[in-house]
Every structure is written in C-alpha cells, then in structure tokens.
C-alpha cells in the first residue's frame, strides 16, 4: 500500500524541513536499531544464565530426590514421610528490589532470605535420621535458591522482551510508516515545485516573447 502523504504546503522551505525530518527519523531508527541489538545481546546473555540456572536447579532437585529416596530406603517410606512432615518449618522470604540494568532499564532483583530461627537447632532426630534426609533437605533449600534466581532471571528476560518489542515497533513505525510518508510528501512537494518551475519558465518565455514582439513593433 503506498504511503499516504502529509498535508503540507508545497514550498521549498517545507521541502527542506521534510528532508531534515527524514534524516532525523533515519538517525532515530539507527539509534533504536543499536538499542535493539544491545537488548538482544543482553537477552542472549540472560537466556544463557537462565539456562545454566535451570540446569543447576534440575541437578539439585535430582540430587535432593536421590537423597530422599536413599533416606526412604534406609528408614522406610512412612518413617521418612513422618520425619519430613514434622521437621520444624524453615522460614524464608524473598525480598524484591530493582537495579539499573542495560539502557537504564530497571531489572528486578530477588533476594532469598532465610530466617535464622532454626539454623542452629537440629531439624530431625539425629539418632534415627539418616544423613541422606538432612542432605535432601539441604539440596531442596539450594533448589529453592535456584528457583528464586531463575524467577529473577525470567522477570528480567520478560522486561527485556517487552522493551525489545517496543523498540521493534518504534523502528518499524519509523521505517515503514514515517519515512515512507516523508518520502511520499517530499516527492509530492518536489513534483509540485518542479511543476511551478516549469510553469514559471513558460511564463518567462511567453513574457520574453511578448517583450520581443513589443520592441519590434516600436522599431
């Protein structure tokens, strides 16, 4: 679909103004393109981090399950369940804040905070709990840390993706709407100016011819 031209006065001054606006739009599009590239690079980095974090999370969960199954094998499944269910609850919280990231974008920061109420007390009856149950609990805690980290990375990735889509929309608007519109308007103004020039030239030639005829008559 051809771009719709703007309503402007077809003057030379307007033409210069339009050309200036076009070069400014191209400049902005270039800057936005560079921002977009930076965001994409950051996105790739965060995606890699998230991927690594997810791998570590799966590894920890795998280890936790393996330890828990070993504990179950040693104590019996019901005892393992009993011991797990009655262990004092470990209080933890996730504190959220923001930090300035790439292009001044506010990135979410999630901090895993463990309450220290039970850290120095045994959570299980040591005499009859296999070490594997303790290990499973520790691995699960580590897994939760990775889950929080992964949530932080996912939130950042989402923010970057949102900004990328905004930037892409802006670039597309400039490249495929504003610049073609300016081009069409410039072409229109140039056409009109050429037409005026042609008319002026004819008018001059007619005037010259009339002046010539008048001077011949006078002689």
């Amino acid at each position: 679909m051809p771009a719709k031209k703007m309503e402007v006065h077809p003057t030379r001054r307007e033409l210069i103004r339009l050309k200036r606006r076009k070069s400014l739009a191209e400049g902005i599009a270039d800057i936005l393109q560079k921002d977009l590239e930076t965001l994409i690079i950051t996105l790739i980095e965060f995606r890699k981090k998230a991927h690594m974090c997810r791998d570590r999370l799966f590894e920890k969960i795998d280890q936790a399950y393996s330890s828990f199954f070993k504990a179950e094998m040693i104590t019996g499944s019901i005892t393992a369940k009993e011991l797990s269910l009655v262990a004092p609850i470990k209080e933890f919280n996730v504190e959220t804040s923001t930090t300035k990231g790439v292009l001044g974008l506010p990135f979410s920061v999630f901090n895993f905070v463990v309450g220290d109420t039970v850290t120095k007390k045994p959570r299980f009856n040591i005499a009859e709990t296999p070490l594997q149950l303790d290990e499973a609990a520790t691995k699960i805690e580590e897994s939760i840390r990775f889950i929080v980290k992964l949530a932080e990375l996912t939130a950042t990735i989402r923010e970057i993706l949102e900004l990328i889509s905004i930037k892409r929309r802006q670039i597309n608007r400039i490249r495929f709407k504003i610049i073609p519109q300016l081009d069409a308007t410039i072409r229109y103004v140039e056409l009109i100016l050429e037409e005026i020039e042609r008319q002026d030239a004819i008018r001059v030639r007619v005037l010259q011819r009339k002046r010539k005829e008048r001077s011949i008559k006078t002689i």
Partner: protein
Amino acid sequence: MKPLKYNEIMPKVALEKLKLMEEQKLVDLAGKNLVEIHCALMESSYKEEIVRVLPRENDSIPFEEALLENYAKTLKNLENFSSGDLKKLIGAIIGKIEISNIKTLLRATKAKMNPDEAKSNIIPVGILNKDRCQDILSNSKTIGDVIEQLFDTKYGVILQKTLSDSNAGDNLLPLESALDQAVYQKIQKVVEKFKGSDKLIAKNVLGIEVETKNIKIILRGIAKGISKDLIKKYLLPSFFISDQTVTNLLDKADIKNFMEYLLSSKEIANNPTLKRVFSQFLENLGKPLNQIEEILEKASLKVSLEMQKKFLKYYNVSYVLVLLNLKWIEIKNLRSIIVGSKRKINASEIKSILTLQNNY
C-alpha cells in the same frame, strides 16, 4: 555348659536363625519389581504376614507393614520362650520398638497424617497394638491428647514431664530424646543385672550401639554447628564414655582429632572390643560423614558376631543379640529393596545401601 535360662530359647533362636533369608537370594532381589519380590517373600518366613496384608501392585507400604509384623512376631516368640534376666533384656529391647511406635503416634498427630497410613508403621509388640494406636490417633488432635492417652503406660509420665519442662511446644525432638533416654537407661539397668560373660557380652553389644549413636549425634551436631549444650541434651545415657570425655569430645573441631581423642580416652583404651571397633574409624577418616555413619551403624552387629565367636563354647546372650541384629538388618535390607523397587532405583544403587555379611 547349658545354663537353664537358655533351655527353651536356644532352639527357638536356632529356628529363627534358620528362617533368615540367604544373603545371595536377598541381594538378587535388588532391582526386581514388586511382583517378583512378592513371589520371593511368599516362599520365605514372611509368607504369613504378606498374605494377611495383601500387598497391592506398586505400593510398598503393605510390604513394609508385613516385614514389621514379622519382626514383631519374632520378638514376641523370643520373649515368650525366654526367662529370667534374658526375658527382662528382651523386654527392654522391645521398649525400643514401643518408643518407636509412640514416636510414630506423635509424628502422625503433629503431621495430621491419615491414621491408617500411620498405623502401617506400627510394630505390634509391647504395650501398643495396632488397634490401640488407631484409637489414639483417631481421638487425638494435639500432642497433648496423645500424651494423655498414654498415661496408663510408663512413657506417658516421661512425655508429660518433658513437655512441661522443656517448653517444647510443637517440637518433638525433646520428647523423642526423652523416650530414647528412658529406654536406654532401662536397658542399661537390665544389663547390669546380668552376671559373668553374659554381662560382658550384653554390655559390649548394647553399649557399642549407644556409643555409636552418641558419636553419630556429636559428629552430625558439630557438622551442623549445633551448640554443645544442645548436643549434650540429645545424647543417650552412655555405657562406657564418661561425661567429661563427652565434654572434651565436643570441643574437637574435626573428625580426626575427635577419633584420636576418643581412642586415647581411658574408657576406650581399657576396653579391647571398643578399641578395635573405633580404631577402624581412623582408617576411614577421609570418607564422607554418611559412610562413617554406615560403619557406625554396623558396629553393634560386628561386636555381637565377635562376641558369639569368642564365647562359642557356651550358650550365652550373644546368640539372642546376634539373631536380633541379623533379623533387624534383614528387615532393613528387604525394606530398602522394596522401597528401591517402588522408586525404580537401579540394582547397584540399592545394593550399595544394603548391609551385607562381607561388609561386617
């Protein structure tokens, strides 16, 4: 020599020992599915209990229940056929099962578990049978309710006193610790009544069980950064190691110093059996804590087998203690195989958890 008190029990012990599964047969079960394990158990001494609980496919709990019921039956048999001090000793050992049942009641109530599920973890021997446990679970909403219903037993008072003294609130550890301490004090009292080689055997076998449990508590407590005073509260009444040695052991920062100090202490240095067992740990110092704990867990069986070899000539308490240890280890091994099968753990990993003869 054949002391009178062993007249009736020894044939029973021999019979029960014959009923134990062959080790190779047991190892071969590792990695098999529950149907195959079911078939194997139907050809063993567990048949009666397996038929009674009718295990469902892919559910390990009925199998575990059957194993525990079989263990209860063995203990009841031994208690019925024993007399005198030996009967008291078996009674005191049954006390360990009783408190395990009480712990199940307390935990199940706190965790609001389904009474039927919790019931399958009850070993029906001693003061609590399954029906009574179910009644207690159905009528109890809090730990206090459970304790109230146990007032007619010797444990009710202990639990009530601990609950009011410790301000434990919902924490079950002080209660469990008080129960453990009461039972091991009782065992210690009964062992002291034995005479001659029986006393030596019982003291060494049951004493090493307590000492290894205490060492496990200290090592894990130190590793977890738990305060010395708190660790001391959870220790069981020691058979050999004095309070002063325990206090000094708690100051040791690493396992090597800990074991060296333990071996040099006069209590261990004067007891060749204990010294031999604990010297083994010095060779395994580089190993992770869970492997050291595995060695500690096997110490009681190792000592009982040593005692049996040493006093082979006469009937003595070591035969009974060896049987009890072997039976419990067989149950634990079968349980590991069954749970491993339910969780689809590979055979080699299951085998690594089993306690086998060649490892003693």
